[in-house]
């Protein structure tokens, strides 16, 4: 008996053999039960996915020496409400042939990208902004003639595509990209985000072409490249395995907040901080980090120094720009019953910790309901499912049902967001109710325009509160959806932060917004955002304006409605400080506004040429303009044909990790047969006993 069981177990994994051997010596049913449970546990506890570690580039002959590398360094200079950021990427060719590197670079939403510098040894080549097509042909011509060249163009909302061509064997080339960014201020806390990764965007099935890739290998003639571009347009954006940049990223920041600070911290990375008066020098404690989550820096003023208003100005040529920050006082008001519609994204991209965070966030929202409220829950992936046909009163048993339903949700399928949005926006609340839609998603959508249009056209009296989930939520989509939905967005970056972030959201849901705001300025000004948003608790009004060149500013006034009563506040427009970069930040907002007008179906030709004119004047990358830097002297000898490259040239930047390519079906099969065998042997033994 013992022998036979062992021979049955011989072809199984060693662990399973050990279990069998042990239990063949036992005789009571309890022990059988225990063994069976062990078998089951052993089978189901096996890892379903592989480690994601993946660090080197591989050569054609199988050796592991790096052929090319890309090191990224980020310098943030934060000054009050604006930050100037320089991203330096050193591309090194360790191979034996000429190379071209191409990669996607995620930048913060609203970044005004204006500078590209190519550094080759001692020489500096400064990039110029050109119309997109012109930049492409200039780049292609340079590549074909063997000159060094680099191109930066907008890929999608806040994702940029960078190409560097004709890097000689053994050579290092540095690309420096510069942009301006506005600092975020809300709930008494300043913050700045640098994205180190991005969530691949899902493109629904029936959609138009996506932004096409620009770089073709140097040897291809331009006409052929064009054909290739057309063919690849159906591709969804690069898979999750395609990491941006390389594993080596260094971040350094200087911070001059202009206020005494209570603390400077990062919830995402450990920091090393040196303080000198109001000046802070910040670096990462672990000098080099993996690019697996966004970098977030936060700083909080001392309570007595929390600002309530600020005005900064920049004079640039014959133009004058101003940044205005105003924190209106908020007051708690009597509770108003609400109709809360909770929408949760259960698409495949939410799999893992994202869906866990989303479920936890929804559960908190459900617990926050009171019996006078009404509610409904909607989930969507490829299909949209509502818990109730229409919103129902928040009776204890229905809330309990909803919490159970939410706890059972899992992530799978595509991201068809539009039907869910339509369903959420379709109904209206009974009179006397505030209708609030809380929309939990990672925002992994490629075709956001249709969603924006739906929000704008169907919003009615509802207010939309997007909640961003995951290590790299699509900030652009969240901000825009909140702006058009006249609500406010919060971001949950990890499971520990769910409670805190949801408290922030409840603070906004529970207090009346300052609404119908409008601004009276004593001077002519072009102000963005054009339509002032509703302001929720803790949110400042942030305006950026172009003023008449020699405007002498006096006092302005801002008016609105607070909890049903008129509200107004005087504005002092006296200069409180000079700031750089305001012109470019203003132009960036104007470009976004023109893009919005285009999306709404405005006059294509007129809007587009206005957009290009603004982008060229302020030297900015946009959907229609790119940065291109070209060396004047050819470097790749004409007699070093590119076929030579083809032989050894293994990899510039852009390598991928391996997929998980096995299931445990063989193990299930073996364990299943083993269990059958043991059952059979038991029966046999029973026979001999009888």
């Amino acid at each position, binding site marked *: 008996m013992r022998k036979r069981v062992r021979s049955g177990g011989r072809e199984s994994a060693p662990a399973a053999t050990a279990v069998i051997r042990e239990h063949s010596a036992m005789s*009571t*049913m309890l022990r*059988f*039960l225990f063994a*069976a449970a062990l078998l089951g546990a052993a089978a189901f506890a*096996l890892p*379903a996915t*592989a480690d994601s570690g*993946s*660090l*080197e*580039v*591989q050569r054609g002959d*199988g050796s*592991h020496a790096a052929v090319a590398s890309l090191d990224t360094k980020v310098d943030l200079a934060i000054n009050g409400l604006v930050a100037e950021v320089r991203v330096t990427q050193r591309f090194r060719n360790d191979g034996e042939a000429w190379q*071209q*590197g191409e990669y996607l670079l995620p930048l913060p939403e609203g970044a005004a990208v204006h500078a590209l510098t190519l550094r080759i040894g001692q020489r500096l080549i400064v990039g110029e902004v050109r119309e997109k097509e012109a930049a492409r042909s200039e780049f292609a011509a340079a590549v074909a003639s063997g000159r060094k060249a680099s191109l930066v163009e907008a890929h999608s909302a806040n994702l940029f595509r960078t190409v560097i061509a004709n890097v000689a064997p053994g050579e290092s080339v540095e690309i420096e990209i510069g942009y301006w960014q506005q600092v975020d201020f809300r709930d008494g806390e300043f913050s700045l985000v640098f994205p180190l990764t991005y969530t691949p965007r899902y493109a629904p*099935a029936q959609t138009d072409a996506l932004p096409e890739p620009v770089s073709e*290998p140097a040897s*291809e003639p331009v006409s052929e490249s064009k054909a*290739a571009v057309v*063919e690849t347009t159906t591709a*969804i954006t*690069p*898979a999750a*395995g*395609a990491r941006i940049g390389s594993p080596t990223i260094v971040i350094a920041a200087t911070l001059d907040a202009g206020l005494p600070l209570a603390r400077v911290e990062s919830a995402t990375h450990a920091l090393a901080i040196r303080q000198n008066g109001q000046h802070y020098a910040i670096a990462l404690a672990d000098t080099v980090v993996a690019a697996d989550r966004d970098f977030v820096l936060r700083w909080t003023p001392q309570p007595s120094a929390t600002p309530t208003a600020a005005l900064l100005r920049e004079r640039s040529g014959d133009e004058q720009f101003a940044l205005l920050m105003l924190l209106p006082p908020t007051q708690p008001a009597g509770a108003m019953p609400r109709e809360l519609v909770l929408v949760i994204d259960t698409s495949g991209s939410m799999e893992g910790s994202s869906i866990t965070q989303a479920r936890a966030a929804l559960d908190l929202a459900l617990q926050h309901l009171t019996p006078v409220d009404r509610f409904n829950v909607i989930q969507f992936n*490829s*299909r949209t499912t509502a818990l109730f046909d229409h919103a129902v009163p928040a009776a204890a048993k229905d809330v309990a049902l909803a919490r159970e339903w939410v706890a059972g949700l899992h992530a*799978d399928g*595509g991201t068809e967001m539009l039907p869910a949005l339509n369903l959420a926006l379709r109904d209206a609340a009974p009179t006397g109710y505030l209708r609030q839609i809380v929309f939990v998603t990672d925002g992994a959508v490629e075709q956001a325009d249709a969603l924006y249009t739906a929000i704008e056209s169907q919003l009615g009296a509802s207010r939309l509160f997007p909640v961003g989930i995951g290590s790299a939520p699509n900030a652009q989509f969240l901000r825009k959806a909140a702006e058009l939905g006249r609500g406010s967005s919060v971001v949950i970056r990890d499971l520990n932060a769910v409670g805190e972030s949801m408290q922030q959201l409840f603070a906004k849901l529970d207090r009346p917004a300052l609404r119908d705001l409008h601004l009276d300025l004593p001077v002519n000004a072009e102000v963005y955002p054009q339509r002032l948003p509703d302001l929720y608790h803790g949110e400042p009004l942030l305006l950026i304006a172009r003023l008449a060149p020699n405007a002498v500013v006096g006092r302005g006034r801002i008016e609105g409605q607070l909890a049903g009563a008129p509200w107004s506040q005087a504005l002092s427009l006296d200069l409180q400080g000079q700031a750089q970069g305001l012109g470019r930040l203003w132009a960036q907002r104007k470009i976004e506004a023109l893009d919005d007008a285009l999306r709404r179906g405005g006059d294509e030709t007129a809007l587009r040429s206005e957009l290009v004119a603004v982008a060229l004047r302020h030297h900015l990358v946009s959907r229609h303009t790119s940065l291109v830097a070209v060396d004047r002297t050819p470097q790749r000898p004409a007699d070093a044909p*590119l076929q030579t*490259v083809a032989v050894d*040239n*293994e*990899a510039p930047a*852009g390598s*991928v*990790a*391996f*997929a*998980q*390519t*096995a*299931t*445990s*079906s*063989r193990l*299930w*099969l*073996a364990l*299943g*047969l083993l*269990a*059958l065998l*043991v*059952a059979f042997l*038991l029966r046999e033994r*029973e026979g001999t*006993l009888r």
Partner: protein
Amino acid sequence: MNRGGADDIASRHRRRAARLLLIALAALLLGQAGYLQAKALLAQVLLEHAWQRSDAGRTATRPWPWADTRPVARLQVAALDVDLIVLAGDSGRTLAFGPAWNEASALPGHAGASIVSGHRDTHFAFLQRLRPGDGLEIERAGLRLRYRVRATRVVDARTTRLATGGADDERLLLVTCYPFDAWAAGGPLRYVVEAERR
């Protein structure tokens, strides 16, 4: 004697219960194994239809309404009687249905490396029978692309990444887990078949 008989009956009942339990466990495990294999087989049938509808990969057609992927190419090895539809995006979800092309790699027919991964215990079990010099064919957007196996190698996925671009030649990298007869999923080794365009 009577007592002994009662003991005997009780112990027989216990044994029968244990046996039923083991049979239930076996059914569960075999069911799981069968499910993975059946999914791999059935999906290819549905994919074949989607492939026809998509006009051989020219348009993006979803094989079933809730799919998060689409067929992009057809991989054939005549000598081994292999005929598989290749999907877009090599996530675990997609690989259960068929071999999948990594979207960050080159499209077959374009310069650079095209990376296609598959499960070693279903679709890509045939990789172990490919030898240098063997022929492969990829059909995509009406093109028939012929490749020849150049080399096979085993790499450690923890320390290696696959290069995707840069070169002008067209290469096809077929990747699966290694060793082929391992019991459980999750190992660090990968088997890479490198083929070049003829």
